């Protein structure tokens, strides 16, 4: 039987816990959304107890453990703890990026981030500089100095953690991956699990 390199790469990424999207792996994403391929991949990984899952905004695919064993539970816990530890920094970062957007729109997969735009916006608004300092501190990016250096370090951090994919060789322009979509799903899980009220819930309570 001949080996399909895209199928192989796709399965490998899913096993490694990567998020497949149009930004991070356009070829594999294109392969996956083509007729029949999704089912083939899903059937294949199901035989080793994994499901092909999709982020709620339908922008990314990832592998998930169908029926976790006690060993799997430990790894789930460890992944959760990993997110939980960096959660505050990520929430602060998302809030800062929302403030930077012209319509206060939260960051989404496929959004383009330019280093120069971020630096200019932060230099123009002292409140954003404070937010940037808080973000770098909480995410332990540990870059002292001017905003420019901090923004560069932050973008590198996000690239390293696969939230951003560089769009040019100089690393001045980035595109958001569907790892943000997964993060939103994780935030929603935490919000529900910890019963943290949303604005709409608060409004409902006020009505009563």
């Amino acid at each position, binding site marked *: 039987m001949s080996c399909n390199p895209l199928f192989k790469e796709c399965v490998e990424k899913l096993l490694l816990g990567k998020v497949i999207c149009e930004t991070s792996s356009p070829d594999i994403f294109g392969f996956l959304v083509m007729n029949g391929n999704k089912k083939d991949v899903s059937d294949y990984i199901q035989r080793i107890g994994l499901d092909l899952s999709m982020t709620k905004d339908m922008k990314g695919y990832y592998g998930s453990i169908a029926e976790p064993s006690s060993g799997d539970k430990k790894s789930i*816990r460890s992944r959760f703890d990993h997110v939980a530890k960096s*959660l505050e920094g990520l929430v602060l970062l998302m809030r800062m990026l929302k403030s930077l957007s012209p319509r206060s729109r939260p960051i*989404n997969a496929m959004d383009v981030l330019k280093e120069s735009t971020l630096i200019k916006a932060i230099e123009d608004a002292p409140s954003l500089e404070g937010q940037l300092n808080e973000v770098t501190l909480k995410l332990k990016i540990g870059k002292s100095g001017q905003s420019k250096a901090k923004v560069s370090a932050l973008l590198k951090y996000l690239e390293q953690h696969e939230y951003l994919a560089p769009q040019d060789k100089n690393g001045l322009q980035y595109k958001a991956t569907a790892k943000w979509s997964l993060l939103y799903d994780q935030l929603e899980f935490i919000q*529900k699990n910890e019963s*943290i009220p949303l604005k709409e819930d608060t409004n409902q309570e006020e009505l009563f």
Partner: protein
Amino acid sequence: MSRLDDARASINVLSRYIQPITDACLTSGGQIIDDSHNEDLVKALLKANLAIQFDGEQIVQINKKTRDLILHVTRSYRQKSSSGEIADLEENLRGAIKLYQDAKRKSSISDIEVYRLEIKTGVYELREALVDMVQHFAFIVQNDFSNISDIEIKLSESERCIKKATSLNEVLSTMTISEFSDLAAGDLFLEDMLVGILVKAVVKCSRDMVDSSHRLRESHSRLQKDIESLHKSDLIDALYAHYQVNPSFIPVLDVSDTEENTQDNATCFSIPAIKIASVPNINDEAQAETLSELLIGIHSESAEDEEEELVEIKDSTGTMIESTIDPIDQGAMYFFEALTSGQSYSAINALKELDLKEQPDIWLNCLMNGYYELNDDQKEKVELTYIGERDRQFNGNLNVTDIIFKHL
């Protein structure tokens, strides 16, 4: 009373009370309060069959036909025909066409004229209903639900409009030239009515509806994105606010619930991280060629990278190298092995006992090294007492001559 008299009476009522009837239709959905002030109006409307009296209520409702007439003639708002109404009008038209063809076959001239008129009216009514409905959708698209403030209600309304537009498109798709040509069956009057007037209108309406449907879907998808963004934004704000109030907050996942949660919504954390590794099967001849090529590749790469001096390699397989332990280390090992619970030994006495030919200070150093290599638990169980003399002039130094090791 004849039908003509009924018609005259109704028109008279409308004419006499045109002001309150128009006001009621345009401002209160056709409702009139049945009180002494409106006594004559209510009586006249009910008598002329232009309104309905609700049981036990002091309200009289002007009927739909009358309301539609007022709304139609005032053009104050576009009448919203439904695809169902259009299908009904089409069904009536088909019925009239069938009876017209029957009348023609029987050469009943007067009946032919009756059905010609009915067909003509039916075609114009259907055309008008189609135009009204298409214009209604065009208005919705242009307006973009600006009269609704809540984004989720906007989305529901947009879904409802898409459903209505789909139904209308389905009705329009059945009104084809071939369908109406077959229905006309070569009759010039029917050809003129159905193909010349109706199909022409249907073609134009279909084109407009394609555009409206497309824009409705665009608007729907934009609304969905807006709702998604709003939800994400709310999530960020909620967690940010939570951290402001609880700065030490760290979320916790109850692992015992994980299985249940995984099937529900903890999927986003149940992500595998499987290490992928493979080794070649050296017994498989099929892989031998590939492995040889890889090996040659590695050799040539390393040869290109650096020029290494060739070293003769001797086969040392099977050669045994014997190593010996220094007697002083061996002595220290015995010393710590002998130091069991409750025992206490002098280092200098042990040196003599073990008959080691070593200087006392080297032996003491060796034992101290051995002590520091013990793990923390073992170290805690050993008490050291230093024996020695201080310098005559106090400088904090103690010249150790012996150490007592006591196992607690």
